[in-house]
């Protein structure tokens, strides 16, 4: 087969002389630098810690557990997210609710953010819109423990409506009315 024969281009004398290219490059850099100095608005980069980029609403960041109107957690502990999760980072302990219209709810819901691959399967698997992938991702921590998020962090962290949580739209009663 002829496919196994490769042609190798040996550089010509002219192209091995780098100096002109360096000047062209530096010229470009300085041009941009001067432009950025005098007209900041057209600058494509951000001053990161002070300025933050607005991500698309489809961005898959840290998980958010939604809540019902009364502020209790929406999740019914069906464990479909844990089933769908390819990284097996979700662990749930379900329990019986005293409210019989709710029946089942999670007493513990933990996501190991370090194991999470942010695939969004949990969001897709959820039958009640209880878990969403939120917009945040810049969430540093000092050790591994800080990355195991529990219900408190997933549903009621400070930046979700001042700790009140994100309300998912359809309520159980409304759902019945729709039918």
């Amino acid at each position, binding site marked *: 087969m002829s496919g196994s024969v490769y042609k190798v281009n040996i550089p010509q004398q002219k192209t091995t002389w780098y100096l002109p290219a360096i000047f062209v490059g530096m010229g470009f850099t300085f041009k941009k630098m001067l432009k950025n100095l005098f007209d900041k608005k057209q600058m494509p980069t951000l001053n990161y810690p002070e300025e933050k980029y607005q991500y698309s609403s489809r961005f898959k960041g840290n998980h958010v557990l939604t809540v019902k109107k009364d502020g*209790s957690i929406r999740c*019914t*502990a*069906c*464990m*479909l997210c844990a*089933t769908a999760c390819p990284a097996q980072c979700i662990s749930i*302990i*379900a*329990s*019986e*609710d*005293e*409210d*019989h*219209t709710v*029946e*089942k*709810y999670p*007493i*513990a819901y933990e996501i190991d953010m370090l194991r999470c691959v942010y695939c969004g399967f949990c969001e897709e698997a959820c*039958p*009640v819109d209880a878990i969403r992938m939120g917009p945040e991702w810049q969430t540093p921590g000092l050790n591994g423990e800080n990355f195991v998020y529990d219900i408190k962090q997933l549903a009621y962290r400070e930046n979700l409506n001042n700790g009140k949580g994100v309300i998912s739209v359809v309520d159980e009663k409304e759902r019945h009315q729709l*039918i």
Partner: protein
Amino acid sequence: MLKCTINGKHVEVKEGTTVIQAFKMLGEEIAHYCWHPALSVAGVCRLCMVEIEGNPRLQIACNTAVTEGMVVTNKSEKVKDAVKWGLDFHLINHPLDCPICDQAGECGLQDQYMKFGKYDPEMAEKKVNKHKAVDLGERVVLDSERCILCSRCVRFTEEISKTNELGIFNRGDRSEIGTFEDKPMTDKYSVNTVDICPVGALTSKDFRFKQRVWFLKDRPSVCPGCSTGCNVDVYYNREGFWRVKPRYNPNVNDYWMCDEGRDTYKYQNKFDTVVVGHRGEKEVMKNVNRVINPMHITGGHAEMMDVQFLLQKISEKLGASKPADVALVVTGQSTNEELSAIVSFFASKFDKKNIYHWQNEPEKWNEFDGLLMRGDKNPNTKGLLKVLEQNGVQAQLWKPSLTAGKLTIVVAPENHSAYKDFSAMVKWAGSGQSTIWLGPGLHEDMGMQGEWWVIPGKTTFEKKGSFENFNGHVQSFEPVTTVIDAAVSADEFVTLLKGANFLEIHKIYRNPVERVENQFIFERGEM
């Protein structure tokens, strides 16, 4: 014998066989809910429709007897359509709350809908609302909305457990299962109704919301609860055992088992898990209920050590003791293999007279409730007596005073609840005696005083061995999984004493629960 043709396959059946039985014999697929091989025919789900040649109307297979030369099919379009609609009728008022339903994953509605369903629902009206999460007593929870009124549970209490506790109340689509005047169900076999419930209407309180069934695997074993020796399937995952269900064996337990036997997994788990507190402040408590590490305890001070090392010490200790100063206590809760190993070992080295049989309430041993439960709560009493006889041992009943001052090897029973004097015995053993304690269960008084060599024992579901039940039926079983890595059975204990290497003889049975990708439907055998 009658000849008939089912879906083009020829088969010969006995007289009186119903068409559905012939289908099952051939392994042909047929939809059904109300029919159960061990119960009478109700004929109410109307799903096992078949077309019989020469009969213009579709017939139900469960109430049609096979006649000579009958040609039956359920592959025709007519039947398929009837089954589709039949399933749709089942589903129109079903709440479809699979996410919070424990049955999801092993549900008859899910399974059969995937096979026979009509995928374009036409029901646009409001569903009927019924009672949800009804407490039916100690062990069973009822959800009337999910119920398809197949009446299997009602027939079970009528025909098998004979308590007649359940009934169908009201009529039409307002029908609901219930107990008379909402009295709690006191049936000793109540959880069988959960097993035979094809949907999630009846769920077990014990298993309720603990696990999703698709995270569990099951393996066969034998129930150690009493001398009946019911065949069971044990459901487990990495964390331990979660539930016990009966496995069909026409010679022993048929399709059933008692409620008490279903609790036998609890003491075999490493932790006793309880949820405490109220909504929002609930907490999961884990109490250790098994011996986890081999220990040498003297004067209330425990020293954890390796099994190998501990056994070496024990071996030395035994070697230094006079044969008359060593005693062995055995119970009918160990397997035949364990018993014969330890008894013959003891008989060869020490005084046969010092072998004792630890019994509890032997006067109750002949009690029988007419179905499965027996008064003898040891699964292997018969085997034990046989082993003792084979070794020429006339074992006395163990009383603490008999072994006072001796180095006593206690092969402790695993099921403490059957031993009323267990606590007292542990206390006694701890009152300044020297005890080699081989047992799985942990007791608070263990090792308070005296000298103890505690070796974590294996439980039935971890062991390989055999039990001989009350009528001499020997049933062998394989380990389900290993909960405590360091645990040894009595036969392994003997082998180790003889100088074997722990790592060589000890196998850890761990069948990790691997999930197949996108595997949501589990086939759990026949409905």
